[in-house]
């Protein structure tokens, strides 16, 4: 079973309309690299000079990766990786 990456609505124009993209990889970074290989236009939306953009949050199974090991956070088959815009609340 692969890793399932959940794509927010505004980015789906870069994933042929797919809400979920399945990839394989052993870390968040590797999974997002694999996503970028499938859909190259998405990489520059997510990263700025190799860093995740300031107003994007990434979650592995609903846990914010900043409280785990950031991009080095390990992932395994069956994990859910969510890309969520950070400008909300307050």
């Amino acid at each position, binding site marked *: 079973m692969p890793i399932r990456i959940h794509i927010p609505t505004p980015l789906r124009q870069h994933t042929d309309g797919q809400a979920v993209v399945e990839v394989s990889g052993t870390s968040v970074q590797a999974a997002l690299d694999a996503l970028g290989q499938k859909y190259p236009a998405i990489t520059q*939306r997510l990263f700025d000079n190799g860093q995740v953009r300031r107003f994007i949050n990434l979650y592995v199974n609903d846990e*914010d990766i900043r409280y785990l090991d950031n991009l080095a956070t390990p992932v395994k088959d069956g994990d859910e990786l969510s890309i969520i815009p*950070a*400008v*909300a609340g*307050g």
Partner: protein
Amino acid sequence: MPTSFVRGLKCRLCGKMYPKEPLNFCTEDFGPLEVDYDYEAIAEVLSRSKIEMRPENMWRYRELLPIDGEPTVGAQVGGTPLIKADRLAEALGVEKLWVKNDAVNFPTLSFKDRVVSVALSKAREFGFSTVGCASTGNLGNSVAANAAAAGLEAYIFIPADLERSKILGSSIYGAKVVGVTGTYDEVNRLCTQVAFKYGWGFVNINLRPFYAEGSKSMGFEIAEQLGWRVPQHVVVPMAGGSLVGKIPKAFQELAKVGLIEHARCRIYGAQASGCSPISTAVKNGWETHRPVRRPNTIAKSLAIGDPADGYFACKVIRDSGGWAEDVSDQEISEAMVLLGRTEGIFAETAGGVTVAVTRKLIEQGRIPRDEEIVICITGNGLKTQDAVAEYVEAPVIIKPSLEELAALVDGAAREPVLV
């Protein structure tokens, strides 16, 4: 005259323009969108006298608020008192102090009525019939009440461990209140997913650019109530970090359209030590905050560990020459008591945070004792009574007899104790 001076939404990072739509972030870089106004056109039509002729509520500044046509929600919001707080000033050892008192805002006793009236007026313009929010309490109360009055269906998402009175204060209006076992940030993340999935009008998600503008009315009122000028220092509580940016923005807009001479004012942010991502960043000189995973403070309305506007709050404080501080739960409760006993204002825990931080900044010498200070009280103490329960004396019980009272009054003259 145009009914709106809004040109569209603009990304705060890359400047890309968007039409007026329920969208809170740039699809290029995820930066926050902000309402973009035609200030030249506003300057042509707006004057002090025109504003002064209008009713005393937030809509007297309507040209600088992002609605099309008449407000349809919250027509009576705002117009709260700015109080010259001489007794509190004396207690803090300063000369000129005012309290902007949104603890008596209408209808739900917090500054959130300002943002919600804009957000729900926009929700109606956009045709939403269901609205919602992620809330630490006050926002939920305001969305629930204003949605009820507007005939909108409302979903309120809160951390499940909120104060009872803040939960009841949403349920009473018939809103569907969803308690989520987790922190505010987890509630917020869930709501972002819900907003995408169900297409509801979430006031602080897809309606956020409009919503946040409502906070400016607190700043407009402060300037007008001071006689069309700004104070030298303003102290603002911080949760998501939005209000602390909107007060100076309000001053700058008033200057831009020629209603005040200048907008020079130092901005200070107040947080609780149990959840102080922004004040910690400011004190350490960081460019932005580091999120706090498990906030732990009695100031639950400020308990946002990962503030959406943390980066901008740090910047606005730094650029203004201000500072930020944070205070313990005990200092918060004591400051609530102090405000009550000096000014007769019962503020919620966030107000205790603001008063206690003001005292700290004065004692540190960061705010000079002889300059003008305005502190922003954003919520009402009746909603957070547990925070001061241990700090006030229980009533004395007597029989209905003059003798018993006389014994009490003459015997042990009870001076109110300032804790």
